[in-house]
């Protein structure tokens, strides 16, 4: 989904590809197996030497956790960041990248598998593989979890500051969102999210979001023509809501959670036509220089305690059973993060469309942007 979906500095990746060398210790541990929690399978190593090279979204992994990983396993972590799935794909397609673990979203994992870019490491067979949540197994992009392990997942809905803009609580649907015309309304700058929401608002069912029926896109475009948000931007939402310059915005649930921590009157709205559920993953690219370390890293991260620490950092729920026990209360009790039972049916995976449909998305999106 979202190209520059994540967090603050999406451009940091373009200009200053931050290669952080974490933890000064490292290397001191001699490779001995056993010990450490979760080491039930004798064959699976829990310690290693050398480095593991991560390629993740900006501001999407807890630096403290990486130090803990090094302390536990003796493997140094080197982190590089990207700002969109497409950037990551272009990099992997360009050949040897030196990365061991990459964090792409659902639809992108599917494409990477089709393009033979991923190593079949079978994370489901790892010691912690049995802890993958049942709804994160059988996923369309990797049904048996042969290539990918679950990372964070979340939805794209609407954040509303009910105190600053009481009228925004009247928004119940995407249709309301596109037609309500409130001040200080911001949209994400993401063609999949904007156009799929407009399609839903004009009556297209979740299963049909990759339709190639042009009339449906024409209807969506008609609706969008009257939609003129104050700002169309994906990377400044949290700050703007905290500063009070934005009161209603299309937002990811995790960033809404971060807004709520500073502005308690923010609510997360689940639009009645349904909303996109995206899921990020850990995968190993073909030719990863430290294959064993990559496996150790993925298994370590699938430990409920470790992945819960990542959830506390990112504000998103994760795909590992038993992690809730280690999550902070504010996260566990936030209906934006842990989906209320009556809202679960509204969520459907972000559409992973073929090129014909994608082109129609692009046409609607660029026409709308051009009319601003």
């Amino acid at each position, binding site marked *: 989904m979202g190209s520059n979906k994540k967090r603050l500095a999406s451009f940091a990746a373009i200009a200053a590809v931050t290669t952080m060398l974490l933890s000064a210790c490292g290397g001191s541990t001699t490779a001995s197996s056993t010990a450490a929690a979760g080491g039930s399978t004798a064959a699976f190593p829990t310690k290693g030497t050398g480095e593991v090279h991560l390629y993740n979204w900006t501001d999407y992994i807890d630096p403290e956790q990486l130090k803990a990983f090094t302390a536990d396993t003796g493997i140094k972590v080197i982190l590089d960041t990207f700002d969109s799935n497409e950037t990551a794909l272009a990099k992997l397609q360009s050949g040897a990248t030196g990365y061991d673990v990459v964090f792409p979203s659902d639809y992108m994992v599917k494409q990477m598998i089709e393009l033979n870019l991923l190593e079949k490491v079978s994370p489901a067979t790892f010691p912690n593989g049995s802890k993958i949540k049942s709804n994160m197994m059988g996923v369309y992009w990797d049904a048996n979890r042969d290539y990918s392990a679950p990372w964070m997942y979340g939805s794209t809905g609407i954040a509303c500051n009910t105190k600053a803009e009481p009228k925004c609580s009247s928004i119940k649907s995407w249709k309301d969102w596109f037609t309500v015309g409130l001040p200080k309304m911001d949209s994400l700058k993401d063609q999949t999210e904007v156009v799929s929401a407009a399609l839903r608002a004009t009556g297209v069912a979740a299963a049909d979001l990759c339709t190639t029926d042009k009339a449906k896109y024409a209807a969506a*475009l008609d609706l969008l023509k009257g939609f003129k948000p104050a700002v169309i931007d994906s990377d400044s939402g949290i700050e703007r809501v905290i500063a009070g310059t934005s009161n209603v915005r299309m937002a990811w649930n995790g960033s809404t959670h971060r807004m709520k921590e500073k502005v308690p009157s923010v609510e997360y709205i689940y639009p009645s036509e349904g909303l996109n559920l995206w899921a990020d993953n850990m995968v190993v690219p073909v030719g990863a220089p430290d294959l064993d370390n990559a496996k150790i890293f993925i298994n370590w991260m699938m430990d409920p305690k470790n992945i819960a620490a990542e959830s506390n950092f990112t504000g998103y729920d994760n795909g590992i059973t038993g992690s809730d026990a280690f999550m902070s209360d504010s996260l566990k009790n936030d209906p934006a993060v842990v989906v209320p039972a009556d809202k679960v049916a509204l969520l459907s995976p972000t559409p992973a469309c073929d*090129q014909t449909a994608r082109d129609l998305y692009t046409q609607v999106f660029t026409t709308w942007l051009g009319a601003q």
Partner: protein
Amino acid sequence: MSKKHVKQLEGRPGQTSPLLALPTVIFLTIGIGIPILVTIIYSFLDRAEIGMGVKWHFNPTSYKSLFIIENLDGTTGFDSRWIKVLWNSFLYSGITTIVTAIFSIPIAMWIATRDENKRNILLAAVTLPFWISILIRTYGIRQIIDDNGPIGTIMHKLGYAHYHIIYTPTATLIGLVYVFLPFMILPIYSSAERFDFRMAEAAYDLGARRWTVLRRIVLPSIRPGIIAGIALVFIPALGSFLQSDMLGGGKTNMIANVIALNFGQARNWPFGCALSVLLIALTLGFVKLIQWIGKKSTGEKVSFI
């Protein structure tokens, strides 16, 4: 280098070894020639079926879709979207050029009239922004013109809270002017530095008024600097991407943003390349235009490119 020294090296005064051109040739080939060639070739190919990139199959439709749109209702018609974006880019770059020139002429003249020590300090100050990444500087500008930044706070205090600068076309322009100002000041300064201010004094002595001195003596002397400055500001401004993206709030689309979209979310490299080729062609046309104007107004060939 003394003449004697040159003689020792080359045997003929004023002539250097053709080998010295090699670094330039290599740089131009690898850094500019090959990428432009790839861009042109890709613009005539099919896009890859999945993933990124192109398929090696000749297909000129990208050029057709620069101007022709297949509407959602099945009709085809003239597509004004890209021309509008190009027009926007030319408009913003043009305004940026004019505004930087208006600021730069007095700044450059003032620096040129200081004594040598001060001049060096002032020049260093002008080039100081180059020490910092353009990304960081754009973030800095964003903080300054933000509603909660210093300017927003002042406007709020004065009762203009309903005016916003951040995420408007004005914000994009402020960002562009800020980033490109040094590129206008430096060439104008280098012309102004060579200007003999006794000429201005002479004009005053002969009874010219201030405006006449400026118009007939000063401006013609620094004209080569201004023309070089226009080229150094206008052309890179056409391809700027960060300012409209980070400061414009999605309200100002420049051509580079559309090209980036086609290499990213839209995944249409051939169309992105076709847009790039169109931009290169228009830029080249603009350069020729400046050269022609320069030649007309100064009587000599202006060679900045």
